[in-house]
């Protein structure tokens, strides 16, 4: 089972179409995805090797219900226990896993749940990632906000009550360079207590600069940790380079960032192996940098503009819940974010088990917060969305709903020092 990613949108020139088909159909036309491109910093690190070895050796079919029950009885969850919890043998024990996950969550986070919102400031992209709405061949309205527009968006969001913001861009160094993103961080510091970044991976010195501009958290999704599969999904652009992306979190920490977030995009490849890799990536990095704050996300594939059929295949809600419970039991201290890709019901349920952070008031488009928050504004001056969201609750609605679930919403627990 596989999604059909190769859609030819209207409006592509003949030469662009030819190039696109060449990349899709002729692997020899693509660059070596394991080779760093010019300007990409190479650091000394053995973490990628450690993670990939464990993942390639992971045969989840060998685990039995005994292994799962043993894992659930242990006080601390070993890597081997985690592998059992992620295996198909864990599925019948979902309720027991959820009970243990809830206990761990309450021990480490009490009844708190953090609320944040993403802000996309540009959707230009140089990559061809076949599942993404921003990919360079997709025919969408492109836009990059000016500093004035960014500030206006931030004012609208801040007015809703939000105190934590995650700044996102498409992956284009040409259109949204590091200085541009740095300026956005400086503006964000004026309106928000906490600023995170989800942008293209950069070098250590650039992370250092962005940290000085006010950002302290960096999220990079590896999408899939199967490098062979990765190669078939990221056909062109800087994102094609697998190891440079893998090492982004480590460079961010070397650049002085306080925390880093990890994820696979579930539905792209074997989700059990990708979930194992995601957690081990975080686990080994935290061992090397014990001061680092670690957080995991769990996005599943969603439909995009011009390809409404993209879906997460075999990763149903039960599978997603199993992954998240296993994450919580293995890494009880890690933050777990569940985004608006998931439904209202799922998010209301999962915050009571293991999720510690949810987004609200979300738009994955560009420059449309005013129209979405207030109904005012000009939709023709907006950039299109990265993917369709599922849960469109506003900040206030989310705040009230979380309180209604017996949880304490937290808007900020952070100081820039």
């Amino acid at each position, binding site marked *: 089972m596989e999604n059909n990613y190769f859609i030819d949108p209207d409006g592509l020139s003949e030469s662009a179409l030819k190039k696109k088909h060449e990349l899709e159909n002729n692997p020899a036309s693509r660059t070596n995805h394991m080779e760093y491109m010019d300007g990409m910093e190479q650091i000394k690190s053995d973490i990628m090797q450690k993670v990939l070895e464990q993942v390639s050796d992971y045969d989840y079919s060998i685990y039995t219900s005994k292994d799962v029950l043993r894992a659930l009885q242990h006080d601390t969850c070993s890597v081997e226990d985690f592998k059992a919890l992620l295996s198909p043998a864990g599925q019948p024990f979902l309720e027991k896993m959820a009970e243990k996950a809830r206990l761990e969550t309450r021990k480490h986070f009490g009844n708190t749940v953090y609320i944040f919102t993403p802000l996309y400031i540009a959707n230009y992209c140089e990559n061809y990632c076949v599942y993404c709405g921003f990919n360079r061949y997709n025919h969408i309205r492109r836009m990059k906000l000016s500093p004035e527009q960014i500030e206006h968006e931030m004012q609208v969001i801040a007015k809703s009550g939000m105190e934590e913001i995650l700044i996102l861009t498409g992956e284009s160094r040409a259109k949204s360079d590091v200085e541009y993103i740095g300026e956005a961080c400086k503006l964000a510091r004026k309106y928000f*207590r906490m600023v995170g970044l989800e942008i293209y991976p950069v070098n250590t010195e650039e992370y250092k600069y962005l940290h000085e501009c006010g950002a302290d958290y960096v999220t990079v999704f590896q999408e899939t940790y199967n490098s062979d599969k990765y190669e078939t999904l990221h056909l062109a652009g800087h994102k094609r380079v697998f190891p440079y992306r893998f090492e982004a979190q480590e460079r961010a920490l070397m650049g002085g960032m306080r925390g880093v977030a990890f994820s696979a995009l579930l539905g792209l490849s074997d989700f059990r192996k990708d979930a194992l890799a995601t957690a081990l990536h975080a686990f080994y990095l935290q061992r090397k940098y014990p*001061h*680092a704050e670690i957080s995991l996300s769990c996005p599943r594939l969603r439909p995009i503009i011009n390809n409404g059929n993209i879906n997460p295949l075999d990763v149903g809600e039960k599978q997603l819940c199993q992954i998240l419970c296993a994450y919580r039991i293995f890494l009880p201290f890690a933050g777990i974010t569940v985004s608006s890709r998931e439904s209202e019901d799922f998010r209301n349920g999962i915050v009571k088990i293991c999720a510690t952070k949810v987004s609200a008031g979300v738009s994955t488009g560009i420059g449309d917060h005013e129209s979405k928050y207030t109904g005012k504004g000009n939709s023709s001056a907006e950039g299109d969305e990265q993917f369709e969201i599922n849960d469109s609750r506003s900040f206030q609605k989310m705040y009230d709903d979380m309180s209604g679930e017996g949880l304490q*919403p*937290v808007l*900020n*627990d*952070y*100081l820039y*020092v």
Partner: protein
Amino acid sequence: MQNSDKLVIGGHEFNSRFILGSGKYSLTLIESAVKYAGAEIITLSVRRANTKEHENILDFIPKGVTLLPNTSGARNAQEAVRIARLARELGCGDFVKIEIMRDTKYLLPDNAETVKATEILAKEGFLVMPYMYPDLNTARDLVNAGAVSVMPLASPIGSNKGLATKDFIQILIDEIDLPIIVDAGIGRPSQACEAMEMGAAAVMCNTALATAGDLPVMAEAFRQAVEAGRKAYLSGLGRVLMRGGSPSDTLTGFLHD
């Protein structure tokens, strides 16, 4: 006994020996801790108070309760000092609890950096209450650095595992002339009671209350446990028979001069 037996920290007197931590908080938790557990000191995470309008923990603290701002989020002495100064600017008073963690997994305090921060802040007039791993040498350094109490951990924070470091805390109680306040890891009233019986000046809890089924009832249970332990300590614990009975004839009865 209640009136004469005061907890004195940095010249300030308190009747209650139960201190509420603030890692996991809600309005009901704070209300219960004050009303039913009798808490007079509530710690306040400065980073959590760094909020604009919604649910600022500062708004939850009843009048008459002493705020103990903590430096959670600090990874070294320098950051702790900066956070403490910010707390003072926010109007949180002169008390400060130093928390310095270089580890996000276990949240264990960094003793060396804690001593450095204590020294700087004590000189600036803060009443410094350092959270520390129970080590006698560090405790002595903290005394010399100007701390007004020492706050050793009982077991890893949030673990509810009780007095895992019991023997080392006892050494601090025996050797250090400042109030020893047991912080982190107390999961049940019986553990709080045991710490007080040992001679701890106070105990601090958060998760144990925050994760309880019935908050007000658990808060009251903690108050009773802390009071019982304190009374037992003050009265002098009864003779504990280690093995068998005590001999009717004394062992040294043959000595004549």
